[in-house]
């Protein structure tokens, strides 16, 4: 006769855990983990500090896990995470400025976002970016793809398109702002 304590075996769920010990992650958390490299890079671009980027990425994931019921399935989870991270970061900067005691991002991140603003209202469908790109001037689209997708430098883009570097920058700036506006990202939190 087998008598068991369920908690000894309950972690044997059907879903395989990613690398690392412990119980399997929820499906949502697994998706977060898959997006972590991009989230970290996003956070690094914002903070320009590896440790602050990891703090921000972690805070973002924790926030996302808590508020996962607010994420709309079928929309881009990466866009949602980026928006949470961005809001957390900007809020931490505001707090840092108004409180001024600590230079540590973490101290301010921790206090941020109890009013729900951080959990973004950005709900991008998978093809919304493509639609936004399709709706913008072809010169803007071309430059956006060249720099943001293909990873070309401004100088390379300038040479390839035979336009001055200054034009690359002003055009790219307008293109990015136009994209953000079309995607509803330009509203401040």
């Amino acid at each position: 006769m087998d008598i068991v304590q369920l908690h000894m075996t309950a972690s044997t769920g059907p879903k395989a855990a990613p690398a690392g010990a412990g119980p399997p992650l929820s499906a949502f958390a697994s998706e977060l983990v898959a997006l972590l490299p991009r989230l970290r890079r996003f956070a690094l671009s914002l903070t320009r500090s590896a440790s602050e980027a990891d703090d921000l990425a972690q805070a973002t994931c924790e926030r996302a896990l808590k508020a996962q019921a607010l994420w709309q399935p079928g929309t881009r989870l990466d866009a949602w995470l980026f928006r949470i991270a961005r809001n957390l970061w900007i809020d931490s900067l505001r707090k840092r400025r108004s409180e001024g005691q600590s230079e540590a991002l973490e101290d301010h991140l921790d206090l941020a976002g109890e009013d729900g603003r951080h959990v973004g209202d950005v709900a991008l469908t998978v093809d919304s970016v493509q639609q936004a790109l399709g709706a913008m001037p072809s010169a803007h689209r071309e430059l956006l793809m060249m720099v943001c997708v293909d990873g070309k430098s401004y100088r390379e883009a300038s040479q390839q398109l035979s336009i001055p570097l200054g034009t690359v920058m002003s055009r790219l700036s307008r293109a990015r702002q136009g994209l953000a506006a079309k995607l509803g990202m330009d509203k401040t939190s």
Partner: protein
Amino acid sequence: MTSAVSDEMLLALADGELEKATADALHARVMAEPELAERFALFVESRALLEDAGSSDQAVPPHLLAAIRAADGARPGRHGLAVIEGGATLAAPAPAVSPRSLPRRTGWQLPLAACLALLIGGIAGYRIGSETPGNPGPSGVALFQSARAALDAALGSSASGSTTSWSHGAAGGSITLVSSHRLGDGTLCREYTLAGAAQGDDRWKGIDCRIKGRWRTELVIAAPSSEDGYRPASGDSAADAFLQDRNAEGPLAPAAEAELLKALAQPKR
């Protein structure tokens, strides 16, 4: 350095096109002026959205994964354990979490206590030392997870002696209520057998007790897989020992059981 900062400069900062010294100085100013930070973040964000999703495979530091794992596990209703221990309220879809109502944290890690509570609060862990040659293995656990919702329904409404079928996705089987008991402290417990229809699915005898408004699995025993009917509770020493140990007064009469089930069906809280 209080002059206006152009969009082009913020763009170049976001795209990593500035010399390090220039970038550091501008970024310091961005950090100090949230208005600049918002404009800057827009450029970072728009690029991140366009980037090829499959372009980065860099390793993620273990502490970050551990933090996610901790936050994931601490979420009620998401943990693998919760399904088994929980009963209907936890087996139901996770409720919408209002960030407004979330408690303030004092550190990065969610409280360890939240994880431990899942373990301690779960199973009463009844064990008879020499009679525990094994455990049910993954199939048994999976069976209980799959059948959880149906089990909750049957425990709350089916009279002892009745058999109901359950299905969950591709899985399915039957639940037979065996008996109801009242423990010395008044807790209602029900003994049942759970069987899966698939080949290789075992039969399990279980006891769930009504604790804090929901059914909690207190005991699971592998039952003989023969189909010649369940044996009465009195023939099951482990289940009996569990119940006697808790001062159960013996199987409830059908009328008393019906009365209690009726009470359970009343709106709670």
